[in-house]
């Protein structure tokens, strides 16, 4: 779906943000990109819909080189949800906000209405359809931003820091929502610092540091590799930390899932 070949990127002010990135994200995959601030995560995902063009190398989306098409064209395939919903909300009502992108893509009246209703239902925003987006709470605004992108049903959904500023129950809802999207066949890319969030989702994890990819694999491998995580300034998931703390008891050290941890402990303690 997204293919990156030897990508280098330097900002106009001379900062080299990406160094020799090669990566392939297949259709229907769920990928989490992690790493410290300034590791190049956001710069990388901005290449997925052509907001940034490579300084060297190439990015292919569905076989099309991003350099040869406009952002609007790519956006039809790759939906991008920004970290801060306030960076995009501007309409008088939630409904208009969701319709904005659909109008840009030239949807006709009837399918446009159908899509808006569908997106409102999907994110549980039906009761706010006539409300002003600015009057909503932070979590609701985030959902409006999400709905406004999902409305046109892009094949790939890219999210920049979706969990920031969300309370625990919102986060849990978001997690289930993302997993649901993924099981419905959408390719999902999430950029996040939130180790717990990632370990619960258990996606493919790409770890970045200093503009390079330092690890790429399943969560169980990447999120339990202390050396790698230290290099990328990412902490261990809490469950893993506990199991590493009691490694004398000969538990496996690659546990990131709460459910698995519970099973292991129960088995050892002889409970059910």
């Amino acid at each position, binding site marked *: 779906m997204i293919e990156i070949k030897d990508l280098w990127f330097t900002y106009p002010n001379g900062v080299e943000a990406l160094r020799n990135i090669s990566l392939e994200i297949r259709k229907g995959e769920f990928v989490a990109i992690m790493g410290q601030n300034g590791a190049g995560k956001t710069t990388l995902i901005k290449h997925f819909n052509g*907001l940034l063009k490579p300084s060297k190398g190439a990015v292919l989306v569905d076989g099309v080189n991003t350099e040869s098409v406009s952002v609007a064209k790519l956006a039809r395939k790759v939906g991008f949800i*920004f970290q801060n919903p*306030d960076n995009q909300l501007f309409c008088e009502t939630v409904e208009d906000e969701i319709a904005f992108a659909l109008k840009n893509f030239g949807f006709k009246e009837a399918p446009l209405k159908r899509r808006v209703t569908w997106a409102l239902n999907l994110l549980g925003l039906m009761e706010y359809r006539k409300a002003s987006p600015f009057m909503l709470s932070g979590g609701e605004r985030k959902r409006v931003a999400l709905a406004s992108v999902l409305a046109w049903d892009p094949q790939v959904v890219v999210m920049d820091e979706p969990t920031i500023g969300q309370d625990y129950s919102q986060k849990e809802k978001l997690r289930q929502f993302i997993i649901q999207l993924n099981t419905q066949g959408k390719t999902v890319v999430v950029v996040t610092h939130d180790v717990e969030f990632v370990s619960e989702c258990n996606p493919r994890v790409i770890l970045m540091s200093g503009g390079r990819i330092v690890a790429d694999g399943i969560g169980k491998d990447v999120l339990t590799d202390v050396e790698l995580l230290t290099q990328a300034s990412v902490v261990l998931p809490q469950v893993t930390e506990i199991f590493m703390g009691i490694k004398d008891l000969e538990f496996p050290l690659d546990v990131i899932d709460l459910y698995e941890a519970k099973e292991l402990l129960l088995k050892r303690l002889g409970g059910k």
Partner: protein
Amino acid sequence: MSVFDGLKFRGISSPIHMLDPRIKFFYVCSIFVVAIIFFELLPLLVLFLFQIPFVILARVQKEWIRSLRGAAFLASIIFGTNILFRFIYAGYTLTASDVEYASAMTLRFIALVESFSIFFLTTSPDHLGLALEKSHIPYEFCFAFTTAVRFVPVLAEEAQTIMDAQKARGLELEKGNFLRRIRNYIPILIPLIISAIRRSLELAEAMEARAWGAIEKRTNLYTLKMKRNDYLLVLVSIAVIIVGIFVKIYVSVPTISNLLGF
């Protein structure tokens, strides 16, 4: 956003950076005065070239060129409208002097941008606030002013993010005719204004939480003191004005087309 980049303070040390901001402002004003009293290309060209040593001395050539590039769009509009109106006014003919007049008006604008760019590139917001305070402007106003200047780059960055976010929702800024293009900017401007207001409210709270305005008379960590170079720049500025006025009154400035024999 390159226009803003050309006005963003660069914290390097150079003789120009060390100058008293009041004097630098006086210098900008003197350039301004001379620029608006002349309508001929030649003196404006001299004025433009006159400032280049300052740019080199301040070591901000790169940023300065960027500010000129940013001004190029507006400059081309000025040139275009001048040519157009001269053309219509003269009964649909165009002479070399018309082109020269339009070039002069454009160069006047560029010379002004140049002087302002030197001023802002080399004057830190702190110094600027200090200078205003020394000029007996109430501290509240000085603070508001310096904060506004300081937040220009922040807003520029925010505008870029908003533009990206809307582009990602299929907005095409370059699409449509002139009016349509202006309307395309509504989805950028509204979030920008709202976030600026939000930011200002937050800033106000954060300031009050740190006892802003607790005492009437504030003291300053740095104070401004006139040095030798400052007096030198005062003399240069006065000389610029005097020479400018003298030339305007007593010398008939030849046009370049005359000199070239058109």
